[in-house]
Every structure is written in structure tokens, then in C-alpha cells.
């Protein structure tokens, strides 16, 4: 119940929408402002000053009380103005494994000539150090968020806040960023060796395209590579020892297969698969990934690894989602 009330309340909050250019510009109706504890203290001291001056009919006391009150009022508007028109753009860094920390980069831009002071970016309880953005320039604020669950995580609401100029008021707004973090499943510590290519009924029929002498690319020489694979021409050109990779030449292809694992917990299975992908890709053989309902064909290289990891990250709710481009 409490959760739903909170949810409903949060839906009521106005958020700064992201424009077509991917930048959220803080508008007039999305800024919230409330006095801080310092502000309340300031207010109560002013109240005492006002009552005292009125009672003693002391005009100079009143004059100064009104001066401080006016400064407070003006400061409130300055706090508001400090956020107004600020351009915020959030970008997530490269994907991470669950349990690691994802770095979010927030680009704050003061459009126009007005400088912005004391801008703080906050996400939940994490706060970045306040920055000053001179007029017409931008500043990059980055802070780490914990990646807790695998999948495509939206950063969702960021809070941009300021206490400028006297910390009497806190003005803030919620920025609904469209930045997402791709979180791979946390790799298990150990995983059983994946199945090497044997006569499997479900194995797609190898024919045509992926011939034995498909040139896949080059990689640096590793201990144990056959001298026949070494690109001697490259060596003669003083490029060092480079090994030519051919599709069929690695001997066995590897299939990493969901159904081969016996672990009942699907998340645990995914993390075992992740470990297998990492292990196999390190050994440099061609591999493919089979998940219920989807298959990633045999291939090699960093891009392939990423695609496999992405499949794992988005598994279960990825049926309708196309792969993000990298």
C-alpha cells in the first residue's frame, strides 16, 4: 500500500522532459523550491527582529529587518533562476556486469551568458560535488551508480539541485533522462566447460558460408599457436608475430547452451553462461550461444562477445527488444 501511494505521488511530480536533441532543459514549471534548515532559522530570527522592532517602534530596526527579508526573497528567486534553462544531458558509460559500478556522465550546460552556481547532481542518496558552470560553457559531472540487476537499467530520475546563493532555499528539479545502462549478468566464479562441437541434433547444419578457410582476421601470436597459422608476410614487414585466424582452423567450435546446464535458478544459469562466454572468448575459439528462443551464431571477437553478453543481459524480457547497436 505504502509503495503504491509513494508511486502515485512520484507520478504526480513534474519532471523535466528530454527534448528531441536528447537534452533536458529545465523549464519554469518543473522547479521545486523549499526553505532549507538554514532558511527556517533565518526566517525565525527575522520574525523575532520584526516583532521586536515593531514593538519598540524602531524604524531602523524595521528597515534592516526588511532588508534581510528582501535579501531572502531575492535569494529565493536567484535559486530558482539558477536552475531555469539549465541544459542537462545524461550519458551512461560502457556496459558493466551486475555488482560493479556504472559511471554516469551528466553534462550541464549554461546556455546563454548567465553563469550557474553551485549545481549539484543527485541520484537517490548519491551526490556529486557541486559545480560552477560559467555562462556559455558546460561542465561534466560523473558519478558512480551501483549496477544491481542485469538488464537494461534506466537512470530514470536525476535530481538537479542548488542552494545558491545563501543556502536559505533549496531549488531542485527532477530530470527524466533517457540514458540507459546495460548491465550484464554477474559472471559466476566457476562454470563447467561448455560443450565442444559434437554431433548434436540441434546443431545447425554447417554448410556453405562458414568454410574451413574463412579468413576471420588476425590476432597476436599466443604461445602454442601453430607456426602454420603465423602471418609470415606481416612478420617480414616487421609487424610482429601475427596469427591469421580462419573459421575452421580452430578445430572445435564451442556451443554455450542454456539447456546443457542443470541449475534450476534461471539467474544462476545466466551467470554461469556469462562465465562460460568470458572463458571461451579468452581461449580464442569460435563459439555460439543458445538460449531458449534465441541463438547467437558461431563467431569470434569483441563484438561477438558483447552481443552474447547483451543477449544474456536482456534474456527473458528481450524477446521483443531488438539488440541495441554498439
Amino acid at each position, binding site marked *: 500500500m505504502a509503495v503504491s501511494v509513494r508511486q502515485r505521488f512520484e507520478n504526480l511530480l513534474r519532471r523535466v522532459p528530454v527534448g528531441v536533441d536528447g537534452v533536458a532543459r529545465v523549464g519554469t514549471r518543473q522547479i*521545486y523550491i523549499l526553505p*532549507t*534548515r*538554514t532558511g527556517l*532559522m533565518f526566517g525565525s*530570527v*527575522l520574525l*523575532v*527582529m520584526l516583532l*521586536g*522592532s*515593531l*514593538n*519598540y*517602534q*524602531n*524604524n*531602523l*530596526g*524595521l*528597515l*534592516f*529587518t*526588511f*532588508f*534581510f*527579508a*528582501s*535579501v531572502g*526573497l*531575492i*535569494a529565493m*528567486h*536567484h535559486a530558482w*533562476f539558477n536552475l531555469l534553462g539549465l541544459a542537462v544531458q545524461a550519458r551512461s558509460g560502457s556496459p558493466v556486469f551486475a555488482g560493479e559500478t556504472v559511471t554516469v556522465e551528466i553534462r550541464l550546460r549554461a546556455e*546563454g*551568458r*548567465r*553563469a550557474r*552556481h*553551485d*549545481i*549539484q547532481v543527485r541520484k537517490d*542518496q548519491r*551526490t556529486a*560535488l*557541486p*559545480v*560552477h558552470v*560559467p*555562462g*556559455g560553457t558546460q561542465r561534466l559531472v560523473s558519478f558512480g551508480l551501483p549496477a544491481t540487476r542485469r538488464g537494461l537499467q534506466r537512470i530514470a530520475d536525476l535530481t538537479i539541485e*542548488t*542552494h*545558491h*546563493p*545563501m*543556502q*536559505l532555499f*533549496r531549488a531542485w528539479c527532477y530530470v527524466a533522462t533517457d540514458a540507459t545502462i546495460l548491465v550484464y549478468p554477474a559472471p559466476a566464479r566457476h562454470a563447467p566447460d561448455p560443450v565442444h562441437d559434437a554431433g548434436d541434433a540441434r546443431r545447425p547444419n554447417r554448410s556453405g558460408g562458414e568454410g574451413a578457410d574463412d579468413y576471420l582476421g588476425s590476432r597476436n601470436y599466443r604461445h602454442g599457436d601453430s607456426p602454420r597459422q603465423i602471418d609470415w608476410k606481416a612478420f617480414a614487414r616487421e609487424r610482429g608475430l601475427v596469427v591469421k585466424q580462419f573459421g575452421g582452423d580452430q578445430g572445435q567450435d564451442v556451443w554455450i547452451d542454456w539447456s546443457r546446464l542443470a541449475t534450476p535458478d534461471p539467474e544462476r544459469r545466466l551467470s554461469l553462461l556469462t562465465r562460460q562466454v568470458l572463458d571461451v572468448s579468452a581461449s580464442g575459439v569460435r563459439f555460439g550461444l543458445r538460449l531458449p528462443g534465441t541463438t547467437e551464431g558461431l563467431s569470434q571477437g569483441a563484438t561477438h562477445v558483447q552481443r552474447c553478453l547483451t543477449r544474456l543481459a536482456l534474456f527473458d524480457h528481450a524477446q521483443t527488444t531488438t539488440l541495441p547497436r554498439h
Partner: protein
Amino acid sequence: MRKQPLCPVTESPDAKQVLALSLLVLATGLPLVRYLHWQINAFLLLLFVVRLFGLRWRMAIPGAWLRVLLTLAGTANCLYANHTLVGQDGGTALFVTMLALKLLELNTRRDLRLTAILTGFLIVIQFLFDQSLPLTIYLGAMAVGAVALLVDLNGGLGDARLRSTLRVAVSLSLQALPLTLALFVLFPRLTTPLWSLGLDSEQGTLGMSDSMEPGAISELVVNGELAFRVRFDSTPPHSDQLYWRGPVLWEMDGRRWSPGSVTLPADGADNPKLEQFANPIAYEIVLEPTHKTWLFALDMPVTAPDDASINRDFQLLSRQPVNSAKRYRVRSALDYRTAEPSASLRQQALQLPDNITPRMRGLVADWRSHADSDWALVQQGLAFFNRESFHYTLLPPKLGKNPADEFLFETRSGFCEHYASSFALLMRIAGIPARIVLGYLGAETNRIGGYQMVWQSDAHAWVEVLIAGRGWVRVDPTAAVDPSRIDNRSATRLLGAASPVRFSLDQASAVSQFVRSLRLLADTLDATWQNWVLDFSAADQFALLDRLGLGDFEYGLAVLMVLAVSLTLSVILLALMRDRSTPEPLDALYARFCQRLAAAGLPRRETEGSSDFGHRVMRQRPDLTAAVSRFLALYLPARFGSHPRPATIRLLALQLLGFHPKSAKRNA
């Protein structure tokens, strides 16, 4: 909304902020030292010294237990010095002590903020003691300082911390000024205090007292303070008519004149009557605080202001003691005839002390033998003072047991009190009812402000005698001895008590003339201050409402205040919204560069970049190649690089100074 998490990195104050705050509190509290007990000041000094040492050596700052002890000691100190912790003096001492103690406990920025905010309170408290314009200006600067400190405590202003902090603080303060003004004028005032004021009424009762003891003081302290200001509706009367009436003294005990303990007979004398009067003149007085109920008016007041009355002695009395400057309007008649007093009052005015000497009686008997009427006898008396070798001096010798006798026959030098006292006694001996009137004589014209000033040093005493058929008649024996005393020779004031009284302004040097006009200017400023700021009251607000036609509207003031404040705020906000601010110097220079070329017939096209434009100019006008390429060589890297260095800006500006291309046609 959400609770703020602690930010330990930004929340600990740095030493500079602590120093700035300590100095701010010190500077703000400094003017108050004049009014605090010396023990309080000593304790404050101790705390400040500890604070300043603590900046260098953290060990010097006392720990929590010691601070508790210091707090107790400070409270005890206040209690010992003022015998109370409340009221104006007691409360102020306690507050200042606690604020100074707080300086020893500045662990977080919150502490600093609280202290900076309380500095505002320290400012306001001081106006209970002193409301002068210079102090206000000084404390205004302190207020801006407190704002600046709060701005710095928030931080986040980027580089050039001091400069940007000051800029933000000053712009905040300037923007706050119109709002302050609107609030000040329109915020509804109280007409009566909410709670007892507890003002210390014994302070500052310089000036007039309600008794007179000639010869007790051997030196009249010439008090250079202002008594009141007068603005006449029409031409001011001549200065020898300016007798400002104050308390009336009836009873003489041989040394000392006092109002006497006359109880009024219930014969309606409570409503004093002038049987006849002519030439009433109207004027307005702004009286400096006296803490007494006396209001001064010209002889004789005809109408009293609403909150005052005229007593049987024709003295104007306010219902409330005048604790702050008071403005009132009076009408007085310069020519008048008072009604005959009752027989009992007449008897009062003939009371004699028991130290009347035979030679005094002899003197009066001698006059009586030469006079055929009471009035002729009065003239005899005045002639006596004029004829004999009486001296007017502000430094009279001290008189002994029988001051009147000693003065009349031995010392023969003194000032108004001596003359008035002895004259009144002599008249009473002769059987003519006489009484003493205290007040002020004369006024100094302030041409700059268009009003008259009456100083404490204009204090005067004169005599009223009762003449059959004429009522009470004013007689000024001092004028008989020294007519210059009633001339407006106010230059004496500049010179202090010890200087000769017969100082003529005509002989004054240009310097003293200059000093005098400076003083007049200062007083005009002071009067304006008094009039427009210190005296501004609920009455003025209602007058303002009336003028605006909102007088009948009950909440007119509040509504008007809300309107005015919102209007002022929106004007300020619109100004802020315009996002004006001067263009970047680099852009300004480039704009000027393009302007000059446009004037020479080479306007830049909308779509043209600076580099393309330059190349086109050089193609079209090869004679400008050197100048244009030199400019662009500096401008382009500055434009498209990072921040331009100030040196580059200066160089570019220098180049533009000599860059005045002529139109191509004239060249050809």
C-alpha cells in the same frame, strides 16, 4: 521534502571563513561597546582574544566543558553588571555575550551560518541605543558583509572566490533595496506596543531639569546637542520673541527653585485662559527625546496637539513621556493677556524663603519710593541690573549660603539663572507676584533645510510678574544686563563654554563660516533622516493612504504592501530574465572590428564566418591585408581555442585603436 544527507567534505568551514566571521561579529558589535558595562566589554574582549588565538593554535579553543563554564561565567557577569538579564541593557549584554561565546564553537558551516544570521540581530539591537545616520551606514555595510559571508558559506561560485562572492552579495543587496523600501513604507506599524518596553528612562536626560539652583554649579556646561527643530508655517518671528516655554517654578527654598507642591484649586484654573490674544502663528516642532512629558511651545500656546494638553502654567504637556523624537503642531499667540489667577495662586507667587537679607529689602524699599506703580517698580529693577556693574558670564564664581544676596551685592556675575532668580525674589519682596519660567530662547536658522534649530545651549530662564490688569507679564532680567544675550549670536556654540560670550559673527573668519555652513548641512541631513526615517509612523502611513484615496479601506495598507512588493519583485525578475549582462569582450571586439569595416563599405554577410570574411576583405582591399590579418591572427585562435587570455584581449583592443579603414572610393 527529502532529508538532506550530510556532506562532510563541504560542511567543514575553512580558517578564512572563521576569521571573516569573527571579524564581522567584532566589527558589528564594536559601536555597542559604548553602551555596555565595562565588565561585559572585558569579558567580550577575552572571548575575542581566545577566538583569534584559536585560529592560529587550535588548542586555544576551549572544549565543551570549559565552554559550559564560560557560558555560566558570562551569564553571571551579565547578571552582576546589570542586575538583570532582561530589558534593553540586560538583554543586549546577554545576547552579545552568548554570540561571542558561539564564536568559540564554530565546528561546522551550520554554526557559521547561524552566527552570521544572528549578526543581523546584533545590528538591529543597536538601533535601540543609537539611531544616527553614520551608524546606520556603517551597519548597512556590516549587513552586506553578513550576506557575503552566507554566500561564501554556500560556495559553488567557481574561481576568483572573493570577487564572485562580493559580486553576488552586492547584487543581492542592491536588488533587495527597492523591496526594502516598499516594505518599509507600507508594512503596517503598531500604534501601541505589544508588551512593556522596559526602556531605560534614566539614560540621556541631558538638557533641562525641572528645578533651578543658581550658584550651585560654577560652570554652565554648554551642551552642544540639539533640543528641537521648528518649522514655521509663515515667516518666523523676530528672535527676541522666541521664548520657548517649559516648566514653571513657583517655590524658592533659599537656594533652589522648584515647581512647588501647589494643589490646584478647583476653580477651573485647570483650563488656562488667555483673556485676549492676537497674531497666532502656527508651527511644527520635532522634539528630541527628553524622557519627560514636556513639550516646548512659544509664549503662549493657544492650541495643543491631540495627545497633549496645556496646564495651568501654560506649559504644554504630552500624555506620554517623549522617549523618541516627537513631532507636533502648535499654535501660539505672541501678544496675549492672561486671566487673573486665583487668590491662592497669587499667594503662592509671593512666597519668600527665610534667607532674605536686610540689604535686599532696603534695595526694594528704595525702588518702591521711586515708583508709583508695580510696573514702574519692575522697570526700576531692570534699570538696576543695567546700571550696576553686572556681568554676564558662563563661568560664574560659586556662591555660598545665601546665593541671591551674594550675587546681588558681591559677585555680580552670572547667567540667566542668577538674574532670573534674584529678580523674582526682589519682585516678591516688593509684593509683586513673580515666578520663574524655564525654557529656551532664540533659534538658529538653517537656510539649507528651511527650519530653525534650538540647541540645549539655548536653555534660558526668565521671570513672569503679575501686573494688575495685564495678567502675567514676561520680564527677562538677563536681557537687561546683556542685550546681546538675546541676539542670535549662536557662534558661541562653536567655541565651547570657556570662550568669550560677546563673539560677533561679523568678525568670524572664513574658516568658521565654512565650519558653520558644514554644520548646518549636517543638521539638515540629520533632520531629513529624522523626518523621513526615524519618525515614520502609522500616522504617516495613514496620511499616505488618504492621499491615495484609500483612507476608508480597512486593509488598504496591507493590500497596498502586497501589491507594491509583488510589483517590485516582478520588475526585478523581469530585469533578471532579460539575461542581459555585457557580451564577452572577445565578441565585443569582433563586433567593433566588423563595424569599422562596414563603415568602410565592407559589411559582413550574415552567413560569413570570421575567417571567410577576412579573406574576402583582403581580396577586395589589399591595402587592409596587414591590419586584417594581424587582427585575425590573434582573434581566430582566441575564438576557437579555450578561454582567451586577458593579454590577448588587450592586444586586440590595442590593434582596433589604430584600425580606422577609409572608404574605398575616397582611397581610389
